[in-house]
């Protein structure tokens, strides 16, 4: 924005054409992620400098096969390519294609050339082209297409200097029109060009063909397009098949002319051999489940080390702030509200980074498409799609990136169901709640001399969440009736070794997106919670110290014990405590008292707050080193005045576990669902459904067990 002369260059290409490699090679770590207006699709922007020292901004767009969109991802690209008169319109477009097989890349290129924006054609994977024994006449290719052609090897960064030189040249609109527009369409196009600012015939033709991709037009302009369409009875999609055939005809002629030496595809044979094992009846599934096990092992076992360090760091920081700053509400807000809030976000970063390291390797190698292939039939029975596997897997770490990953599902119904059920997968924020409750009610014993009972209980909860997700999907599949058809036409890319720097960039990008997306909400919520827990009606809170001193004058408390008691007293009389007491009648059938009620209230927005609230309410100093053990023993000692027995009986414990497995309790997820589904309908339905499911299941569990 600051520099008007800075060029904007968009990267467009088929999936698996090496677009991300090219973007990463061009921009290095100079990347930032923005949002496209209205949707959470990441817009990857990156800066680079050209040989003359000027800066250029690259924009990486989602991979597409054609400018006719089918999924949300693709629609964004279509809108950017059609919108020629906005400040974000790219000055140049680089179309990147897999040169080992040019047909489909040329289809996309021919469409983009016809749109009339200055275009550069980057032929990628020239190393494989040489290996496969293909030779192209690049001059003839460029001459026939009317755009510059640059051979590159994006993985190794070869040819980028030449590419940058071409970017530096003044961008000229391609003069060729490859597609010959049908005679029937000429009259409406002419009318449209007279009344709207449209650069060329094909752009006008696309306006007629793509009513859904014109959100950038004003209402009046959209009306003009609609009127023209109606007046000439132009049906979108009427000519689309014929257009593709005409383009492929041109492409076949072109390839016959410019391909000097053709090849067979036998160099790909290794990929077929790998597929024999990885899509095998038995080994295919065995290897996939082994891989899942490895991923979960990594998320739960290996990630705990950095997570503990982060936890310690933030609690130390909190304590440090208390000791150096003067006491008062601002210090308390900072040390008890904001710092733990940030800590509560950062603590999930290791798990999310590890998960996306795996997912990115699987995607880079081409294996993820095989997972979709293997799972599609199974998932379809539940109204899902093979592509739902990735979101459901990601949901085990965090529902936010998982829900954002549903964008690749082109079918609206399957995508909506996937979004709806993903939060039922047990995410990492449930883990601390599970751990402490299981430790409290399940004995640390071995069953059959082999399996640890606590481990089995934990696994059972994950399984429960997964089954609930599948079951809910199955029910939704019966309820939702749509005409839209589901299909799975997907490329199985050739296997290749992942490029590690791309994996690194993905990790950074996804982690950043999580911290920013979830961060905003968790931050705001932790401040609200702090207010609810720090202020209360009447003057009980301001007189907390005197009241506690008066109550416990003959108890001979240590200083620490006294402070803990004051904290608990404050919480009890705060707004959070008042709400906890108010909802007690509603949660009594589940076996909970008002203290657990407070924890339910505070974890409404973020479930992981449960443990912290328990610590405060049972007056355990947050400064304690062995916090978990203390909370556990204190919770174990808690007495239920009605029975005289312990408060946390197995019935209460299991009821709570089931409640936390099913309940929504995550404001960030609600926010992401709102944005991904563009409305309040689905997040509200989801919240109601999950709360009802949690409440009823917890009720049943408690009533049966007690």
């Amino acid at each position: 924005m600051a520099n008007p002369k800075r060029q904007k260059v968009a990267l467009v290409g088929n999936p698996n054409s090496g677009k991300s490699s090219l973007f990463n090679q061009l921009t290095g770590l100079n990347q930032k992620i923005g949002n496209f207006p209205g949707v959470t699709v990441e817009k990857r922007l990156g800066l680079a400098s050209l040989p003359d020292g000027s800066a250029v901004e690259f924009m990486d767009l989602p991979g597409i096969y054609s400018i006719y969109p089918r999924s949300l991802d693709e629609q964004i690209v279509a809108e950017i390519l059609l919108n020629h008169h906005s400040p974000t319109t790219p000055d140049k477009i680089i179309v990147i294609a897999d040169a080992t097989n040019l047909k489909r890349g040329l289809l996309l290129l021919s469409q983009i050339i016809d749109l009339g924006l200055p275009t550069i054609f980057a032929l990628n994977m020239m190393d494989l082209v040489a290996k496969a024994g293909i030779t192209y006449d690049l001059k003839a290719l460029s001459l026939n297409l009317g755009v510059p052609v640059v051979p590159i090897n994006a993985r190794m960064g070869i040819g980028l200097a030449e590419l940058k030189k071409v970017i530096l040249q003044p961008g000229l609109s391609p003069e060729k029109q490859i597609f010959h527009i049908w005679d029937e369409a000429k009259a409406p196009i002419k009318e449209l060009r007279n009344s709207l600012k449209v650069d060329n015939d094909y752009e006008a033709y696309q306006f007629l063909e793509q009513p859904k991709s014109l959100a950038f037009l004003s209402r009046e302009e959209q009306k003009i397009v609609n009127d023209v369409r109606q007046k000439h009875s132009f049906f979108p999609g009427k000519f689309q098949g014929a257009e593709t055939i005409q383009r492929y005809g041109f492409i076949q002629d072109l390839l016959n002319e410019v391909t000097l030496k053709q090849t067979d595809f036998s160099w790909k044979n290794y990929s077929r051999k790998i597929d024999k094992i990885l899509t095998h009846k038995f080994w295919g599934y065995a290897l996939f489940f082994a891989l899942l096990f490895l991923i979960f092992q990594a998320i739960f076992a290996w990630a705990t080390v950095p997570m503990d360090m982060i936890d310690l760091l933030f609690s130390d920081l909190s304590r440090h702030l208390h000791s150096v700053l003067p006491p008062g509400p601002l210090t308390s807000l900072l040390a008890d509200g904001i710092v733990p809030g940030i800590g509560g976000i950062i603590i999930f970063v290791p798990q999310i980074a590890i998960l996306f390291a795996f997912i990115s390797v699987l995607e880079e190698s081409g294996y993820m498409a095989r997972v979709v292939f293997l799972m599609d039939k199974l998932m379809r029975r539940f109204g899902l799609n093979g592509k739902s596997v990735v979101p459901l897997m990601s949901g085990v770490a965090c529902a936010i990136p998982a829900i954002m990953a549903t964008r690749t599902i082109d079918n609206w119904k399957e995508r909506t169901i996937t979004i709806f059920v993903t939060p039922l997968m047990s995410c990492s924020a449930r883990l601390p709640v599970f751990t402490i409750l299981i430790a409290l009610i399940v004995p640390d014993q071995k069953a059959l001399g082999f399996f640890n009972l606590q481990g089995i209980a934990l696994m059972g909860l994950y399984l429960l969440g997964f089954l609930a997700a599948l079951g809910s999907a199955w029910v939704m599949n019966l309820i939702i009736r749509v005409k839209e058809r589901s299909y799975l036409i997907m490329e199985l890319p050739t296997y290749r070794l992942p490029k590690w720097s791309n994996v690194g960039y993905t990790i950074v990008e996804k982690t950043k997106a999580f911290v920013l997306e979830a961060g905003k909400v968790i931050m705001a919520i932790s401040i609200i919670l702090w207010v609810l827990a720090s202020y209360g009606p009447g003057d009980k809170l301001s007189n907390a110290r005197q009241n506690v001193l008066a109550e416990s004058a003959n108890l001979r408390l240590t200083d620490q014990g006294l402070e803990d008691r004051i904290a608990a007293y404050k919480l009890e009389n705060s707004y959070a405590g008042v709400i906890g007491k108010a909802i007690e009648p509603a949660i009594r059938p589940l076996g909970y008292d008002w203290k657990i009620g407070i924890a339910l209230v505070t974890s409404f927005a973020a479930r992981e707050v449960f443990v912290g609230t328990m610590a405060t309410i049972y007056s355990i100093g947050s400064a304690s080193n062995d916090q978990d053990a203390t909370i556990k023993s204190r919770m174990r000692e808690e007495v239920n005045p009605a029975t005289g027995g312990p408060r946390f009986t197995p019935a209460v414990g299991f009821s709570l576990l089931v409640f936390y497995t099913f309940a929504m309790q995550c404001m960030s997820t609600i926010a992401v669902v709102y944005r991904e589904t563009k409305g309040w309908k689905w997040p509200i339905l989801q919240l109601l459904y999950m709360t009802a499911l949690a409440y009823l299941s917890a009720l049943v569990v408690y009533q049966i067990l007690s």
Partner: protein
Amino acid sequence: MAENLKNVSQMKPGDIAIIAGFTDEYLSFKLMEMGCLPGVPVRFNFTAPFGDPVCISVSGYELSLRLEEAATISILS
């Protein structure tokens, strides 16, 4: 037109045939964009463990599609 034509879903692993046309207009747009064009040879590679989806080679690409989608591609054989 396609009553007596076979379709891709009836092919066996290893079979090669020529695409004759499509019986479903909506899917044909997507299939053609992915390289399934009338007159182009198609090879049936293998199926997923439950027989669905299937993997075919066409125009030098490996595509996976569901049986019901494969059934919309008519072949000459």
